[in-house]
Protein backbone atom coordinates (compact mmCIF):
# COMPACT_ATOMS: atom_id res chain seq x y z
CA UNK A 1 0.00 0.00 0.00
CA UNK A 2 1.26 3.46 -0.82
CA UNK A 3 -0.26 5.19 2.19
CA UNK A 4 2.46 7.12 3.96
CA UNK A 5 2.98 6.49 7.58
CA UNK A 6 4.59 9.42 9.31
CA UNK A 7 7.36 8.39 11.61
CA UNK A 8 6.06 8.32 15.16
CA UNK A 9 9.20 10.04 16.41
CA UNK A 10 8.36 12.98 14.16
CA UNK A 11 4.66 13.19 15.07
CA UNK A 12 5.56 13.16 18.75
CA UNK A 13 8.15 15.87 18.23
CA UNK A 14 5.73 18.11 16.32
CA UNK A 15 3.02 17.61 18.94
CA UNK A 16 5.45 18.60 21.68
CA UNK A 17 6.60 21.68 19.75
CA UNK A 18 3.00 22.78 19.28
CA UNK A 19 2.34 22.29 22.97
CA UNK A 20 5.31 24.35 24.09
CA UNK A 21 5.60 27.16 21.55
CA UNK A 22 2.83 29.65 20.93
CA UNK A 23 0.95 29.54 17.63
CA UNK A 24 2.53 32.72 16.34
CA UNK A 25 6.01 31.49 17.28
CA UNK A 26 5.81 28.34 15.23
CA UNK A 27 5.23 27.79 11.54
CA UNK A 28 5.08 24.23 10.26
CA UNK A 29 4.83 23.60 6.54
CA UNK A 30 3.60 20.27 5.29
CA UNK A 31 4.01 18.68 1.89
CA UNK A 32 0.97 17.50 -0.11
CA UNK A 33 1.02 14.14 1.67
CA UNK A 34 0.57 15.93 4.99
CA UNK A 35 4.10 15.22 6.20
CA UNK A 36 5.89 18.06 7.96
CA UNK A 37 8.76 19.27 5.79
CA UNK A 38 9.78 22.62 7.21
CA UNK A 39 9.67 24.07 10.72
CA UNK A 40 10.22 27.77 11.22
CA UNK A 41 10.45 29.63 14.52
CA UNK A 42 11.69 33.02 15.70
CA UNK A 43 14.01 32.68 18.69
CA UNK A 44 14.93 35.20 21.38
CA UNK A 45 17.38 35.13 24.25
CA UNK A 46 16.12 33.68 27.51
CA UNK A 47 15.35 36.72 29.63
CA UNK A 48 12.38 35.35 31.52
CA UNK A 49 9.26 37.43 31.00
CA UNK A 50 11.24 40.55 30.22
CA UNK A 51 10.93 41.06 26.46
CA UNK A 52 12.23 44.62 26.79
CA UNK A 53 15.74 43.38 27.43
CA UNK A 54 15.81 41.00 24.47
CA UNK A 55 18.19 42.72 22.11
CA UNK A 56 18.83 39.99 19.57
CA UNK A 57 16.79 37.45 17.66
CA UNK A 58 16.99 35.09 14.72
CA UNK A 59 14.64 32.91 12.68
CA UNK A 60 15.51 29.22 12.77
CA UNK A 61 14.40 27.28 9.70
CA UNK A 62 14.70 23.50 9.79
CA UNK A 63 14.02 21.53 6.61
CA UNK A 64 13.08 17.95 7.39
CA UNK A 65 14.18 15.57 4.65
CA UNK A 66 12.32 12.37 3.86
CA UNK A 67 13.75 9.88 6.31
CA UNK A 68 14.24 12.38 9.17
CA UNK A 69 15.31 11.77 11.94
CA UNK A 70 17.54 9.07 10.47
CA UNK A 71 18.80 11.71 8.05
CA UNK A 72 20.00 15.10 9.35
CA UNK A 73 17.76 18.10 8.68
CA UNK A 74 19.03 21.23 6.89
CA UNK A 75 19.40 24.28 9.10
CA UNK A 76 19.21 27.90 8.05
CA UNK A 77 19.29 31.03 10.17
CA UNK A 78 17.43 33.99 8.69
CA UNK A 79 16.75 37.60 9.68
CA UNK A 80 19.44 37.85 12.35
CA UNK A 81 18.94 41.05 14.38
CA UNK A 82 21.67 42.62 16.46
CA UNK A 83 24.04 39.78 15.54
CA UNK A 84 27.20 40.12 13.50
CA UNK A 85 28.20 37.67 10.79
CA UNK A 86 30.68 35.79 12.98
CA UNK A 87 28.08 35.05 15.63
CA UNK A 88 25.61 33.83 13.02
CA UNK A 89 28.27 31.62 11.42
CA UNK A 90 29.17 30.11 14.79
CA UNK A 91 25.51 29.40 15.56
CA UNK A 92 25.14 27.75 12.18
CA UNK A 93 28.14 25.43 12.58
CA UNK A 94 27.21 24.51 16.15
CA UNK A 95 23.68 23.69 14.99
CA UNK A 96 24.99 21.49 12.19
CA UNK A 97 27.26 19.64 14.61
CA UNK A 98 24.29 19.09 16.91
CA UNK A 99 22.29 17.58 14.03
CA UNK A 100 25.10 15.12 13.33
CA UNK A 101 25.19 14.06 16.99
CA UNK A 102 21.45 13.47 16.97
CA UNK A 103 21.05 11.36 13.86
CA UNK A 104 18.27 8.88 14.58
CA UNK A 105 16.68 11.09 17.26
CA UNK A 106 14.46 14.18 17.03
CA UNK A 107 16.68 17.25 17.26
CA UNK A 108 14.32 20.25 17.22
CA UNK A 109 14.39 20.90 20.95
CA UNK A 110 18.13 20.55 21.08
CA UNK A 111 18.46 23.07 18.25
CA UNK A 112 16.10 25.57 19.82
CA UNK A 113 17.93 25.28 23.13
CA UNK A 114 21.31 25.69 21.43
CA UNK A 115 20.31 28.81 19.49
CA UNK A 116 18.69 30.31 22.59
CA UNK A 117 21.88 29.79 24.56
CA UNK A 118 23.85 31.57 21.86
CA UNK A 119 21.36 34.44 21.80
CA UNK A 120 21.39 34.76 25.57
CA UNK A 121 25.17 34.88 25.57
CA UNK A 122 25.30 37.62 22.95
CA UNK A 123 22.26 39.53 24.13
CA UNK A 124 23.74 42.88 23.20
CA UNK A 125 23.91 44.06 19.63
CA UNK A 126 27.28 43.03 18.19
CA UNK A 127 26.63 44.54 14.80
CA UNK A 128 27.39 48.17 14.03
CA UNK A 129 24.97 51.07 14.00
CA UNK A 130 23.87 51.44 10.37
CA UNK A 131 23.75 55.21 10.73
CA UNK A 132 27.24 56.06 12.03
CA UNK A 133 28.87 52.73 11.06
CA UNK A 134 30.45 52.38 14.51
CA UNK A 135 29.81 49.64 17.07
CA UNK A 136 28.02 49.65 20.39
CA UNK A 137 30.21 50.15 23.44
CA UNK A 138 29.69 49.85 27.13
CA UNK A 139 28.09 53.13 28.09
CA UNK A 140 26.58 53.83 24.67
CA UNK A 141 22.87 54.49 24.68
CA UNK A 142 21.15 52.59 21.93
CA UNK A 143 17.62 51.92 20.79
CA UNK A 144 16.01 48.75 19.58
CA UNK A 145 13.28 49.39 17.04
CA UNK A 146 10.11 47.33 16.84
CA UNK A 147 11.72 45.58 13.89
CA UNK A 148 14.78 44.60 16.00
CA UNK A 149 17.25 46.94 14.36
CA UNK A 150 19.72 48.82 16.50
CA UNK A 151 20.94 52.36 16.41
CA UNK A 152 22.70 54.62 18.82
CA UNK A 153 19.90 56.72 20.28
CA UNK A 154 21.78 59.83 19.24
CA UNK A 155 22.08 58.63 15.62
CA UNK A 156 18.44 57.58 15.42
CA UNK A 157 17.33 60.96 16.77
CA UNK A 158 19.33 62.69 14.04
CA UNK A 159 17.74 60.44 11.40
CA UNK A 160 14.17 61.00 12.56
CA UNK A 161 14.67 64.76 12.86
CA UNK A 162 16.16 64.95 9.36
CA UNK A 163 13.45 62.74 7.87
CA UNK A 164 10.73 64.87 9.45
CA UNK A 165 12.34 68.05 8.14
CA UNK A 166 12.47 66.52 4.66
CA UNK A 167 8.81 65.49 4.93
CA UNK A 168 7.73 69.01 5.92
CA UNK A 169 9.77 70.60 3.15
CA UNK A 170 8.31 68.26 0.53
CA UNK A 171 4.79 68.94 1.81
CA UNK A 172 5.28 72.66 1.48
CA UNK A 173 6.36 72.29 -2.13
CA UNK A 174 3.08 70.59 -3.05
CA UNK A 175 -0.06 72.52 -3.96
CA UNK A 176 -2.46 72.52 -1.04
CA UNK A 177 -4.84 69.95 -2.50
CA UNK A 178 -2.01 67.45 -2.85
CA UNK A 179 -0.72 67.87 0.67
CA UNK A 180 -1.16 65.16 3.21
CA UNK A 181 -4.21 66.36 5.14
CA UNK A 182 -3.19 64.67 8.36
CA UNK A 183 0.21 66.37 8.08
CA UNK A 184 1.44 63.55 10.22
CA UNK A 185 5.02 62.45 9.77
CA UNK A 186 5.71 58.75 10.18
CA UNK A 187 9.28 57.77 11.03
CA UNK A 188 10.63 54.65 9.37
CA UNK A 189 13.49 52.31 10.18
CA UNK A 190 16.59 53.26 8.14
CA UNK A 191 17.37 49.60 7.48
CA UNK A 192 14.04 47.93 6.63
CA UNK A 193 11.66 50.92 6.23
CA UNK A 194 9.15 49.54 8.74
CA UNK A 195 7.23 52.25 10.59
CA UNK A 196 8.82 53.00 13.94
CA UNK A 197 7.59 55.03 16.88
CA UNK A 198 10.15 56.73 19.08
CA UNK A 199 10.28 59.60 21.49
CA UNK A 200 12.71 61.84 19.66
CA UNK A 201 13.10 64.17 22.63
CA UNK A 202 14.47 61.45 24.86
CA UNK A 203 16.60 59.99 22.06
CA UNK A 204 18.25 63.38 21.62
CA UNK A 205 19.28 63.45 25.25
CA UNK A 206 21.65 60.51 24.62
CA UNK A 207 25.34 61.31 24.17
CA UNK A 208 27.01 60.68 20.80
CA UNK A 209 28.48 57.16 20.32
CA UNK A 210 31.79 56.59 22.12
CA UNK A 211 33.59 55.08 19.12
CA UNK A 212 32.59 57.97 16.91
CA UNK A 213 34.03 60.46 19.34
CA UNK A 214 37.23 58.48 19.70
CA UNK A 215 37.84 57.85 15.99
CA UNK A 216 41.07 59.01 14.41
CA UNK A 217 41.56 61.67 11.80
CA UNK A 218 41.90 60.95 8.16
CA UNK A 219 44.34 62.15 5.61
CA UNK A 220 45.30 61.24 2.08
CA UNK A 221 47.41 58.09 1.55
CA UNK A 222 49.85 57.24 -1.22
CA UNK A 223 47.41 54.72 -2.67
CA UNK A 224 44.75 57.38 -2.66
CA UNK A 225 47.00 59.84 -4.39
CA UNK A 226 47.80 57.25 -7.05
CA UNK A 227 44.09 56.63 -7.64
CA UNK A 228 43.48 60.35 -7.84
CA UNK A 229 46.11 60.59 -10.55
CA UNK A 230 44.53 57.76 -12.55
CA UNK A 231 41.14 59.41 -12.27
CA UNK A 232 42.49 62.73 -13.46
CA UNK A 233 44.22 61.07 -16.40
CA UNK A 234 41.05 59.29 -17.47
CA UNK A 235 39.14 62.56 -17.21
CA UNK A 236 41.61 64.25 -19.57
CA UNK A 237 41.48 61.39 -22.08
CA UNK A 238 37.69 61.44 -22.12
CA UNK A 239 37.68 65.20 -22.37
CA UNK A 240 39.93 65.08 -25.43
CA UNK A 241 37.49 62.86 -27.26
CA UNK A 242 34.52 65.05 -26.30
CA UNK A 243 33.14 62.55 -23.84
CA UNK A 244 32.72 64.94 -20.93
CA UNK A 245 29.40 66.66 -20.39
CA UNK A 246 29.97 70.35 -20.96
CA UNK A 247 27.86 72.17 -18.42
CA UNK A 248 28.81 75.54 -19.83
CA UNK A 249 27.51 74.59 -23.25
CA UNK A 250 24.32 73.31 -21.62
CA UNK A 251 23.74 76.73 -20.13
CA UNK A 252 24.03 75.66 -16.52
CA UNK A 253 26.98 77.75 -15.60
CA UNK A 254 25.14 81.01 -16.19
CA UNK A 255 22.60 79.92 -13.67
CA UNK A 256 25.34 79.15 -11.20
CA UNK A 257 27.29 82.37 -11.52
CA UNK A 258 24.44 84.54 -10.38
CA UNK A 259 24.42 82.76 -7.04
CA UNK A 260 28.09 82.42 -6.43
CA UNK A 261 29.59 84.17 -3.50
CA UNK A 262 32.28 86.68 -4.39
CA UNK A 263 35.64 84.99 -4.46
CA UNK A 264 34.25 81.51 -4.38
CA UNK A 265 34.38 81.08 -8.12
CA UNK A 266 37.91 82.04 -8.99
CA UNK A 267 39.90 80.04 -6.51
CA UNK A 268 37.21 77.59 -5.47
CA UNK A 269 38.29 74.12 -4.53
CA UNK A 270 36.49 72.29 -7.31
CA UNK A 271 38.70 70.30 -9.60
CA UNK A 272 38.69 71.54 -13.19
CA UNK A 273 35.75 70.45 -15.23
CA UNK A 274 33.60 69.52 -12.29
CA UNK A 275 30.40 71.04 -11.21
CA UNK A 276 29.53 70.79 -7.58
CA UNK A 277 27.85 74.11 -7.96
CA UNK A 278 25.47 72.82 -10.52
CA UNK A 279 23.89 70.56 -7.95
CA UNK A 280 22.63 73.21 -5.70
CA UNK A 281 20.86 74.99 -8.48
CA UNK A 282 19.73 72.12 -10.55
CA UNK A 283 18.70 69.69 -7.92
CA UNK A 284 18.15 66.34 -9.49
CA UNK A 285 14.40 66.21 -9.66
CA UNK A 286 12.29 63.31 -10.75
CA UNK A 287 10.94 64.25 -14.12
CA UNK A 288 7.49 65.34 -13.02
CA UNK A 289 9.00 68.15 -10.99
CA UNK A 290 11.17 69.43 -13.73
CA UNK A 291 8.55 71.56 -15.41
CA UNK A 292 8.56 74.06 -12.59
CA UNK A 293 12.09 74.97 -11.78
CA UNK A 294 11.20 78.59 -11.19
CA UNK A 295 9.12 77.89 -8.13
CA UNK A 296 12.07 76.29 -6.46
CA UNK A 297 14.53 78.94 -7.31
CA UNK A 298 14.49 80.68 -3.96
CA UNK A 299 15.07 77.67 -1.79
CA UNK A 300 17.81 76.46 -4.07
CA UNK A 301 19.53 79.76 -3.92
CA UNK A 302 19.64 79.47 -0.19
CA UNK A 303 20.96 75.96 -0.30
CA UNK A 304 23.59 77.01 -2.66
CA UNK A 305 24.87 79.87 -0.59
CA UNK A 306 24.84 77.58 2.38
CA UNK A 307 26.91 75.01 0.61
CA UNK A 308 29.41 77.50 -0.70
CA UNK A 309 30.13 78.93 2.69
CA UNK A 310 30.49 75.47 4.09
CA UNK A 311 32.90 74.46 1.43
CA UNK A 312 35.05 77.47 2.11
CA UNK A 313 34.93 76.79 5.78
CA UNK A 314 36.03 73.26 5.17
CA UNK A 315 38.95 74.32 3.11
CA UNK A 316 40.18 76.83 5.59
CA UNK A 317 39.94 74.59 8.62
CA UNK A 318 39.93 71.05 7.46
CA UNK A 319 43.08 70.74 5.46
CA UNK A 320 45.62 73.05 6.95
CA UNK A 321 47.96 70.21 7.65
CA UNK A 322 47.90 68.72 4.18
CA UNK A 323 50.06 71.32 2.56
CA UNK A 324 53.02 70.29 0.49
CA UNK A 325 55.51 70.96 3.23
CA UNK A 326 53.93 68.58 5.67
CA UNK A 327 52.93 65.95 3.24
CA UNK A 328 55.58 63.35 4.07
CA UNK A 329 55.07 63.47 7.77
CA UNK A 330 51.33 63.43 7.51
CA UNK A 331 51.41 60.35 5.39
CA UNK A 332 53.56 58.37 7.81
CA UNK A 333 51.37 59.44 10.66
CA UNK A 334 48.31 58.35 8.79
CA UNK A 335 49.88 54.99 7.96
CA UNK A 336 50.33 54.17 11.60
CA UNK A 337 46.82 55.18 12.45
CA UNK A 338 45.51 53.31 9.47
CA UNK A 339 47.18 50.05 10.53
CA UNK A 340 45.79 50.41 14.00
CA UNK A 341 42.30 50.84 12.66
CA UNK A 342 42.74 47.82 10.46
CA UNK A 343 43.72 45.75 13.47
CA UNK A 344 40.86 46.82 15.63
CA UNK A 345 38.45 46.29 12.81
CA UNK A 346 39.54 42.73 12.19
CA UNK A 347 39.17 41.82 15.84
CA UNK A 348 35.70 40.43 16.38
CA UNK A 349 33.85 42.31 19.05
Amino acid at each position, binding site marked *: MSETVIDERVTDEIAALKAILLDDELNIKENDRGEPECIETVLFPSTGEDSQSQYVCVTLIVQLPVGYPDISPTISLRNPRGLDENTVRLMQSDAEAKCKDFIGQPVMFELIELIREHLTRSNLPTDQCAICLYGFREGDEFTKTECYHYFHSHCLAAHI*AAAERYYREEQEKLPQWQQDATNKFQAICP*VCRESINCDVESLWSAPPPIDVEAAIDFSVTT*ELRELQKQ*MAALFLRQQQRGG*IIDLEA*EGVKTLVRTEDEPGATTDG*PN*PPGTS*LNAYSNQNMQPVNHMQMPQSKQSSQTQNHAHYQSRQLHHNYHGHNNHGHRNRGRGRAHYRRQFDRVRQTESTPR
Partner: protein
Amino acid sequence: MAALPRRIIKETQRLMQEPVPGISAVPDDTNARYFHVIVTGPEDSPFEGGLFKLELFLPEDYPMSAPKVRFITKIYHPNIDRLGRICLDILKDKWSPALQIRTVLLSIQALLSAPNPDDPLANDVAELWKVNESEAIRNAKEWTRRYAMDN
Protein backbone atom coordinates in the same frame (compact mmCIF):
# COMPACT_ATOMS: atom_id res chain seq x y z
CA MET B 1 33.26 69.15 16.32
CA ALA B 2 35.52 67.67 13.71
CA ALA B 3 35.66 69.17 10.26
CA LEU B 4 34.71 65.87 8.68
CA PRO B 5 32.20 63.46 10.23
CA ARG B 6 33.68 60.15 11.36
CA ARG B 7 31.32 58.22 9.19
CA ILE B 8 32.72 59.81 6.03
CA ILE B 9 36.24 58.93 7.17
CA LYS B 10 35.18 55.37 7.84
CA GLU B 11 33.48 55.00 4.49
CA THR B 12 36.50 56.41 2.69
CA GLN B 13 38.82 53.96 4.44
CA ARG B 14 36.56 51.05 3.61
CA LEU B 15 36.31 52.04 -0.01
CA MET B 16 40.11 51.80 -0.13
CA GLN B 17 40.45 48.60 1.91
CA GLU B 18 37.56 46.64 0.46
CA PRO B 19 36.95 48.11 -2.97
CA VAL B 20 33.75 47.19 -4.76
CA PRO B 21 34.47 45.43 -8.06
CA GLY B 22 33.75 47.71 -10.99
CA ILE B 23 33.56 50.82 -8.83
CA SER B 24 36.20 53.19 -7.58
CA ALA B 25 35.59 56.30 -5.54
CA VAL B 26 38.42 58.58 -4.47
CA PRO B 27 38.07 61.70 -2.37
CA ASP B 28 39.40 64.92 -3.78
CA ASP B 29 42.63 66.35 -2.45
CA THR B 30 41.14 69.63 -1.39
CA ASN B 31 37.63 68.60 -0.43
CA ALA B 32 37.12 65.29 1.34
CA ARG B 33 33.36 65.48 0.75
CA TYR B 34 33.87 65.44 -2.99
CA PHE B 35 34.56 62.06 -4.62
CA HIS B 36 35.89 61.25 -8.05
CA VAL B 37 34.13 58.11 -9.17
CA ILE B 38 34.51 55.58 -11.95
CA VAL B 39 31.76 53.05 -12.58
CA THR B 40 32.40 50.40 -15.20
CA GLY B 41 29.54 49.57 -17.52
CA PRO B 42 27.94 46.27 -16.46
CA GLU B 43 28.44 43.14 -18.53
CA ASP B 44 25.66 42.32 -20.99
CA SER B 45 24.46 45.91 -20.99
CA PRO B 46 24.92 48.43 -23.81
CA PHE B 47 27.39 50.17 -21.50
CA GLU B 48 29.73 47.17 -21.24
CA GLY B 49 33.36 48.15 -21.66
CA GLY B 50 32.72 51.78 -20.72
CA LEU B 51 34.45 53.61 -17.90
CA PHE B 52 32.00 56.22 -16.68
CA LYS B 53 33.21 59.11 -14.60
CA LEU B 54 30.87 60.47 -11.99
CA GLU B 55 31.15 63.07 -9.30
CA LEU B 56 29.71 62.50 -5.87
CA PHE B 57 29.31 65.10 -3.18
CA LEU B 58 28.33 64.48 0.43
CA PRO B 59 26.21 67.40 1.69
CA GLU B 60 26.73 68.80 5.15
CA ASP B 61 24.03 66.72 6.80
CA TYR B 62 25.14 63.47 5.15
CA PRO B 63 24.23 60.69 5.99
CA MET B 64 20.93 62.29 6.99
CA SER B 65 20.50 63.48 3.44
CA ALA B 66 21.49 61.76 0.21
CA PRO B 67 24.76 62.28 -1.63
CA LYS B 68 24.56 64.37 -4.79
CA VAL B 69 25.72 62.27 -7.73
CA ARG B 70 26.09 63.11 -11.38
CA PHE B 71 27.59 61.48 -14.46
CA ILE B 72 30.47 63.44 -15.94
CA THR B 73 31.01 61.16 -18.89
CA LYS B 74 28.33 61.41 -21.55
CA ILE B 75 25.92 58.50 -21.42
CA TYR B 76 22.85 57.52 -23.43
CA HIS B 77 20.35 56.30 -20.86
CA PRO B 78 16.64 57.05 -20.32
CA ASN B 79 17.08 57.80 -16.61
CA ILE B 80 20.11 60.06 -16.99
CA ASP B 81 19.70 63.47 -18.58
CA ARG B 82 22.15 65.37 -20.74
CA LEU B 83 23.63 67.09 -17.69
CA GLY B 84 24.39 63.68 -16.24
CA ARG B 85 21.74 63.93 -13.55
CA ILE B 86 20.32 60.63 -12.41
CA CYS B 87 16.70 59.72 -11.73
CA LEU B 88 16.95 57.25 -8.88
CA ASP B 89 14.59 57.11 -5.92
CA ILE B 90 17.25 56.40 -3.29
CA LEU B 91 18.89 59.70 -4.21
CA LYS B 92 15.64 61.51 -3.43
CA ASP B 93 12.73 60.48 -1.25
CA LYS B 94 13.88 56.90 -0.68
CA TRP B 95 17.21 57.92 0.82
CA SER B 96 18.10 56.21 4.09
CA PRO B 97 21.13 56.83 6.28
CA ALA B 98 21.75 53.07 6.23
CA LEU B 99 22.76 53.46 2.59
CA GLN B 100 26.39 54.30 1.85
CA ILE B 101 28.56 55.63 -0.94
CA ARG B 102 29.20 52.08 -2.06
CA THR B 103 25.53 51.07 -2.07
CA VAL B 104 24.55 54.22 -3.94
CA LEU B 105 27.15 53.54 -6.62
CA LEU B 106 26.08 49.90 -6.87
CA SER B 107 22.51 51.06 -7.39
CA ILE B 108 23.66 53.38 -10.15
CA GLN B 109 25.55 50.52 -11.76
CA ALA B 110 22.39 48.41 -11.51
CA LEU B 111 20.44 51.22 -13.19
CA LEU B 112 22.77 50.86 -16.17
CA SER B 113 21.82 47.17 -16.39
CA ALA B 114 18.11 47.91 -16.07
CA PRO B 115 17.08 51.16 -17.78
CA ASN B 116 13.52 52.16 -16.97
CA PRO B 117 12.06 54.24 -19.83
CA ASP B 118 8.71 54.47 -18.03
CA ASP B 119 10.27 56.75 -15.43
CA PRO B 120 12.29 58.95 -17.74
CA LEU B 121 14.61 61.83 -17.09
CA ALA B 122 15.95 62.17 -20.62
CA ASN B 123 12.67 62.32 -22.51
CA ASP B 124 13.93 61.84 -26.05
CA VAL B 125 16.09 58.89 -25.02
CA ALA B 126 13.22 57.31 -23.09
CA GLU B 127 10.87 57.81 -26.03
CA LEU B 128 13.21 56.03 -28.42
CA TRP B 129 13.85 53.33 -25.83
CA LYS B 130 10.11 52.65 -25.79
CA VAL B 131 9.30 52.81 -29.51
CA ASN B 132 12.50 51.34 -30.91
CA GLU B 133 14.52 49.61 -28.25
CA SER B 134 17.08 48.10 -30.59
CA GLU B 135 17.95 51.49 -32.04
CA ALA B 136 18.19 52.99 -28.56
CA ILE B 137 20.53 50.22 -27.48
CA ARG B 138 22.61 50.80 -30.61
CA ASN B 139 22.88 54.47 -29.66
CA ALA B 140 23.84 53.61 -26.11
CA LYS B 141 26.57 51.27 -27.37
CA GLU B 142 27.81 53.88 -29.80
CA TRP B 143 27.99 56.57 -27.09
CA THR B 144 29.78 54.12 -24.81
CA ARG B 145 32.30 53.31 -27.53
CA ARG B 146 32.80 56.93 -28.50
CA TYR B 147 32.96 58.59 -25.09
CA ALA B 148 33.54 56.07 -22.35
CA MET B 149 36.03 53.57 -23.69
CA ASP B 150 39.60 54.02 -22.68
CA ASN B 151 41.84 52.75 -25.45
